[in-house]
């Protein structure tokens, strides 16, 4: 009964979220001329762009629901009330619905689509030619980073050819195709997590986290591709077979050629670390890149948390309780970063301060709480 209630809650909340997301469709983008869609979109768009406090509140409610369901699913899995088959069904249904959502908090997917179009339709080198240099390119109307050459490595660029082709030149179909492609990588990642940990808890901890749902399944960020390749690489590199090691190095190299962040994983490999020590160091190195280098370049983007999140869940909870808790606190704080823009409609002004505050508070509270717990010796003996 509880299982069904959890599944039904996910179905209802995700369906409502998908409908809600279409209010944020770019004003220059007409996804369909169907009168039913146009009518619904007109109403939702007015809500999203004119009723900002209300829409921010609705988004916050969705976030709360997703986090509550996440905690519930995790608890049920821990108590063995949710078995492998139930978890697969819950994850599949949730992803299957959310993949149809509009990317409401990030425009990166349109950047991926346009970059792929530059390479596979215009046959131009996207590292040399910017989309904006073809003024009559239709996707310029809704692509935000059109004045930049390709931002991602060749692995992603070549892989993006698959969803590009499957989109058949239709914007909506291409968007869904990209999201589906990325979600398949996420599913591959979940399989890998299970393969490494043999724990369904770890699968739930990662796969149903609202940050993963929103940043990967809804927004279609390619960071998951980089991380799945990295985890595959590290997993295989710990095996004794030469073939496994060779594939492991190739996977890691391909991962580095997605976005570059996983280049730091060469350090624990050179130190010949294995098992949880390898994963822990990988976690902290990627966390360092996230917390130190990304704000220098731009800012703390929520989807960058995927980098260290994957390594937090492949370690057993009893030894990585702090890392897992920290990651979850970050997932809350980072998802709250979307609220100021949704509320105000612009990034500047008090936006940066509010975004920092909304991220720092949950993380700070968690750190203080965990320190107190440790001081009270509640956690002593658990951490090795």
């Amino acid at each position, binding site marked *: 009964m509880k299982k069904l209630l959890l599944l039904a809650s996910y179905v209802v909340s995700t369906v409502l979220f998908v409908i809600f997301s279409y209010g944020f469709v770019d004003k220059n983008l007409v996804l369909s001329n169907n009168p039913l869609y146009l009518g619904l979109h007109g109403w939702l768009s007015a809500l999203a762009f004119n009723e900002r406090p209300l829409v921010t509140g609705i988004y916050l409610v969705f976030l709360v629901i997703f986090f509550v369901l996440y905690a519930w699913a995790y608890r049920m899995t821990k108590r063995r009330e949710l078995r492998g088959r139930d978890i697969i069904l819950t994850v599949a249904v949730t992803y299957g619905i959310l993949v149809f959502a509009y990317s409401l908090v990030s425009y990166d997917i349109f950047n991926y689509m346009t970059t792929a179009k530059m390479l596979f339709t*215009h*046959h*131009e*080198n996207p590292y*040399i*030619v910017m989309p904006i*240099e*073809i*003024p*009559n*390119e239709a996707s310029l109307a809704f692509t935000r980073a059109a004045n930049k050459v390709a931002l991602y490595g060749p692995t992603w660029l070549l892989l993006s050819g698959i969803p590009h082709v499957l989109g058949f030149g239709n914007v909506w179909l291409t968007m869904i195709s990209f999201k589906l492609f990325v979600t398949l990588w996420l599913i591959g990642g979940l399989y890998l997590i299970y393969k490494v940990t043999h724990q369904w808890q770890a699968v739930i901890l990662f796969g149903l986290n609202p940050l993963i749902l929103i940043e990967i399944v809804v927004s279609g960020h390619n960071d998951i591709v980089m991380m799945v390749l990295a985890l595959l690489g590290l997993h295989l590199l710990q095996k004794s077979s030469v073939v496994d090691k060779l594939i492991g190095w190739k996977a890691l190299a391909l991962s580095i050629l997605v976005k570059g962040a996983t280049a730091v994983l060469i350090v624990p490999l050179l130190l010949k670390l294995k098992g949880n020590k390898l994963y822990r160091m990988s976690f902290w190195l990627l966390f360092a890149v996230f917390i130190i280098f990304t704000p220098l370049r731009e800012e703390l983007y929520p989807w960058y948390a995927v980098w260290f999140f994957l390594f937090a869940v492949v370690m057993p909870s009893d030894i990585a309780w702090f890392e897992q808790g920290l990651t979850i606190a970050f997932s809350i704080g980072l998802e709250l970063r979307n609220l100021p823009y949704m509320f105000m409609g612009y990034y500047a002004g008090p936006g940066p301060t509010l975004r920092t505050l909304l991220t720092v508070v949950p993380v700070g509270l968690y750190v203080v709480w965990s320190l107190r717990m440790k001081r009270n010796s509640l956690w002593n003996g658990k951490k090795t």
Partner: protein
Amino acid sequence: MENRRNKGVRMVSAVILLFLGTFFLHNNVFASYVLPYPSYMPGNKLYRLSRLIDTFNKYWYFGNIAQVKYHLGLSDKYLVEAKTLFDYNQYLLAIDALHRSSDQFAAIMPNVLTAEQSGDDMTQFRSEIQEASIAHKTVITTLLQTTPNEFLWQPERASATRLYIHNELSTALSIQ
């Protein structure tokens, strides 16, 4: 009363004329096309490497627009190289660089046309190429005024070569 009206009419006319005048000013102003600084010159250890990279870059700059950028970039680079060599009276090397610059410039338009045939709007590139052409012609015209018409190039251990410098520059002028 009449005087005040006349004064008003004169002021309005002056403002309109001033406004219209800006159109003429606009027509006479050209966006300055900036040629690059000289790269490695013949004799430098890295010159051959630089030329090798230029050759390989042809494959990296795939696509019609990228090819336009590639050929335009090299045409600029080799013209600057030619000018520097002319300034140092290295006429034989200068003419070789001038040939390369003209060859690269001539390779631009076919790519523009192919891009246009495939539906890409090349208006911005056409205007950039036009500006580049003006900048190139300015350099070549200056060289026509500062170089001798002909020059007998006499290497130490080889036979002499007569260089028809102005002919070469005029040919480059007609291509670019």
